[in-house]
């Protein structure tokens, strides 16, 4: 499949071309960035629908797997590629109007496409050192994007994020180095084979601890969550949406799945730790969120809480739990991006993030109001929307495996989520309109389009559980995780692939 490397070629070349040409033509920048992300989205759909089931391998430079770098596309990668590129497309659409209020928009697009290149590269790479390189590309671009407004608060948040996230990267790098010294190979599948033959020794367990520190920090599970509530609200709204929507999932959850489920293997102790941390994240995130009066900060705390659901589902390790976790990962990307875009739309029109200063905005901004209601109901798990189905799957899976307590905590977390989003609705969109904002109008066309697309996906994506449809999207990803160490056999399919 010759199109596999284009997942990194397109955003990288787009970034540099925009940096060269962007300062002369604003029009070109918008068009070019949107075309790039849209083509990436189409490519990920193409890979899903035309080669849906078998794993695909690409030999970079024609070198054979254990020595050369391979790009691997399997079910989990297809699933993540669709999620990342779909969200990225809607976010560039939103940025066309939103980023007008910042200077030098082309730098924003350059950094954004770098971040996208990093995420896509991380997803398709089958080589663990390349994974680290792309992880750093995405992280470094995101540090710069968090500080994009260059106010004191943003710089402080960015610095905090930089310190914690660099520590996470260092942990991951050290883990890779230790594994490399033990297995003498960097190809993930080949590493799996060597680990299978040589067995698990203390150094592998030590590197597993380092990996867990790293991905835990990147995905902001509770004991490692301190940077997130500062970093995510400080960024411009489209970037908050990307960070919360896909970055913490790609750098955190995807890497956790790939390294622990496919490379090192999991045991019951690890799963217990994951489930406990997941439930802890659900409760701590939602309790901290409920008192916030800054809308973006509230959403950032909810990201921690929702990541908790994903981790809980994945940590169960049963087919239903993993399915629920993955489905919640997709759903959370969609509705959390939508909520951050809504908060961006509010900030765009009235210029504040403080909930107590808003009120009655639905009359003047009906579209923002209704899409945010849809997203709020989705994240709280109200039946027709997508969040309900994934949370239901996770809770049923908890019951099925006998973790009644965890199921009850998950339900309580969901109720608290509902209450805090009812607070958002009440303060922002219902009630009396503040007299200052009488003249406020609905946001421009591209922002509206992005929000409507995401809202439609919120309503429809519950249908992805329908038996025939889930064969394409969810079940292949679930199969990769449940297959676990079978990932090590993936290089053998290279013979029937050019």
């Amino acid at each position, binding site marked *: 499949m010759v199109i596999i490397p284009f997942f990194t070629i397109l955003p*990288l070349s787009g970034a540099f071309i925009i940096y060269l040409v962007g300062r002369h033509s604003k029009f070109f920048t918008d068009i070019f960035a949107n075309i790039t992300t849209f083509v990436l989205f189409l490519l990920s759909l193409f890979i899903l629908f035309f080669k849906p089931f078998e794993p695909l391998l690409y030999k970079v430079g024609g070198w054979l797997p254990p020595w050369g770098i391979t790009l691997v596309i399997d079910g989990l990668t297809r699933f993540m590629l669709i999620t990342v590129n779909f969200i990225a497309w809607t976010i560039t659409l939103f940025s066309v109007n939103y980023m007008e209020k910042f200077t030098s928009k082309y730098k924003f697009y350059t950094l954004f496409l770098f971040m996208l290149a990093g995420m896509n590269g991380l997803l398709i790479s089958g080589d663990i050192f390349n994974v680290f390189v792309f992880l750093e590309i995405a992280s470094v671009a995101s540090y710069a994007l968090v500080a994009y407004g260059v106010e004191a608060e943003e710089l402080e948040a960015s610095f905090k994020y930089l310190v914690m996230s660099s520590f996470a990267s260092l942990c991951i790098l050290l883990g890779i180095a230790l594994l490399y010294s033990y297995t003498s190979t960097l190809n993930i599948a080949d590493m799996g084979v060597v680990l299978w033959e040589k067995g698990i020794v203390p150094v592998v367990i030590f590197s597993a601890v380092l990996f867990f520190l790293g991905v835990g920090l990147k995905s902001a599970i509770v004991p490692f969550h301190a940077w997130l509530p500062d970093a995510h609200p400080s960024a411009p709204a489209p970037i908050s949406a990307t960070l919360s929507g896909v970055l913490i999932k790609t750098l955190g959850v995807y890497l956790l799945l790939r390294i622990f489920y496919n490379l090192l293997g999991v045991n019951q102790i690890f799963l217990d730790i994951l489930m406990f941390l997941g439930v802890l994240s659900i409760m701590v995130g939602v309790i901290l969120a409920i008192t916030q009066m800054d809308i973006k900060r509230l959403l950032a705390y909810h990201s921690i809480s929702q990541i908790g659901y994903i981790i809980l589902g994945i940590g169960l390790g049963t087919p239903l739990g993993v399915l629920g976790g993955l489905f919640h990962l997709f759903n959370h990307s969609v509705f959390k991006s939508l909520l951050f875009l809504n908060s961006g739309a509010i900030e765009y029109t009235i210029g504040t993030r403080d909930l107590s200063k808003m009120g009655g905005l639905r009359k003047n901004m009906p579209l923002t109001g209704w899409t945010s209601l849809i997203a709020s109901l989705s994240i709280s798990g109200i039946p027709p929307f997508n969040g309900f189905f994934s949370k239901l799957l996770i809770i049923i899976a908890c019951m099925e495996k006998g973790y009644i307590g965890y199921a009850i905590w998950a339900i309580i977390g969901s109720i608290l989520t509902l209450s805090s989003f009812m607070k958002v609705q009440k303060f922002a969109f219902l009630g009396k309109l503040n007299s200052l904002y009488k003249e406020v109008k609905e946001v421009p066309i591209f922002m509206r389009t992005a929000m409507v697309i995401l809202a439609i996906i919120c309503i429809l994506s519950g249908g992805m559980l329908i038996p025939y449809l889930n064969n394409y999207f969810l079940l292949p990803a679930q199969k990769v995780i449940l297959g676990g160490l079978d990932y090590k056999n993936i290089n053998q399919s290279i013979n029937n692939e*050019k």
Partner: protein
Amino acid sequence: MSYDNKDKGMTLIVKTITGLTVGLILLYGLYITLHGHISPGGGFAGGVIVAISFIHLMLAFGREEALRILPKTFISVLESVGALLFLGIAILGFMGGYFFLDWFSKGKPFELFSAGSIIFSNIAIALKVGLGLFGIFLVLILLKFTSKDE
């Protein structure tokens, strides 16, 4: 270069020595870059040395002098061009069937023109790294830091 301007840069001794050595440093950087495939070093190391030669110029003669030789827009444009060149070389590999395939003529081992496209990749990396590093140095110098108390 203005050796006798006492307001800008360092003393005459430093300026004279820098004037003598800076060309050699630049040449050495280019040498490391071009011989990256047959001796230790390569695009990254060569680019760093090239950047150091310009940083020397800036330290000795003041920033206006260095920016006259290498203007800011020139730096940022060439940096992007370096990255695009590297990507272009990688994409050219598709002519042989694979991304990043080295399909140029390999030549005789241990000669300057051997190892196919590695030398071009090294030049692209040197452009990107050298100008990127110099750009970072410039940004650190040009930024004015203000605290809240002022």
